[in-house]
């Protein structure tokens, strides 16, 4: 068996489905799809006039919400796996790509009409996040 000497033993990265970079992609994809499913599910059973619906509990009536919960758990597990191999200050900034995917998904899959003003706001948030994501990941490591 050959050992790649450029990698430290703690960072030995499994290949195939266990590849941490692939798992990072899986985690992001699960978050992305779960957000869209949650929105679809919540809209299906929405009761905006009832005060109780602020608790969101009525959302459990939608099967899409349950699928979203499954994906959230899956994303959480693959994220924990990713963190065993990739440092938070690298993995976290990359995972924020979901901030771009979600508004695009809203537009493409949910047919949400996003005004120019909202696009500008989203863009500012994304740029701001891109700027702070590394220092914040480091802070979170210490917190």
């Amino acid at each position, binding site marked *: 068996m050959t050992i790649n000497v450029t990698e430290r033993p703690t960072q030995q990265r499994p290949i195939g489905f266990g590849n941490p970079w692939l798992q990072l992609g899986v985690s992001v994809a699960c978050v992305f799809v779960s957000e869209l499913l949650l*929105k679809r599910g919540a809209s299906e059973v929405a009761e905006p006039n009832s005060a109780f619906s602020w608790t*969101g509990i009525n959302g459990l009536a939608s099967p899409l919400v349950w699928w979203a919960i499954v994906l959230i758990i899956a994303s959480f597990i693959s994220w924990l796996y990713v963190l065993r191999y990739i440092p938070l200050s690298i993995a976290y900034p990359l995972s924020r790509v979901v901030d771009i995917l979600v508004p695009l998904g809203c537009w493409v899959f949910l047919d949400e009409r996003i005004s120019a*003003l909202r696009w500008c706001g989203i863009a500012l948030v994304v740029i701001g996040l891109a700027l702070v994501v590394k220092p914040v990941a480091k802070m979170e490591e*210490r917190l």
Partner: protein
Amino acid sequence: MSFLAFFFIVVSLVTFVAAQLILKRAMEFSATAGMRNAYFVSRVAIGVALMTVSFFLTLGLLQRFDLSYLYPFQGLSVIFITILAAVVLKEKLGVRLAIGAILITAGIVLVSMS
């Protein structure tokens, strides 16, 4: 947006950030002290409970607003972490962090007006 909606958005974000930090602390603690102790179990329980609160509040909000409207507010979580780091770690705000925080805030103001 109503005051109530803004209140729930902030509560759902604060509970989420708090849960993340509590769970992280619990996991770090378990690395040395193991998982079979009251401290670890209670922290995980608190973390999971806070995450659940955040999840259901989000589900309530999604019944009322577009996802493209609500999602950018998650940028606020970064501001909470920055404030927390300043308070707990006495960390100073770098220029990059300050500019980023201003951009995120401006972006959220634009989204909330849309």
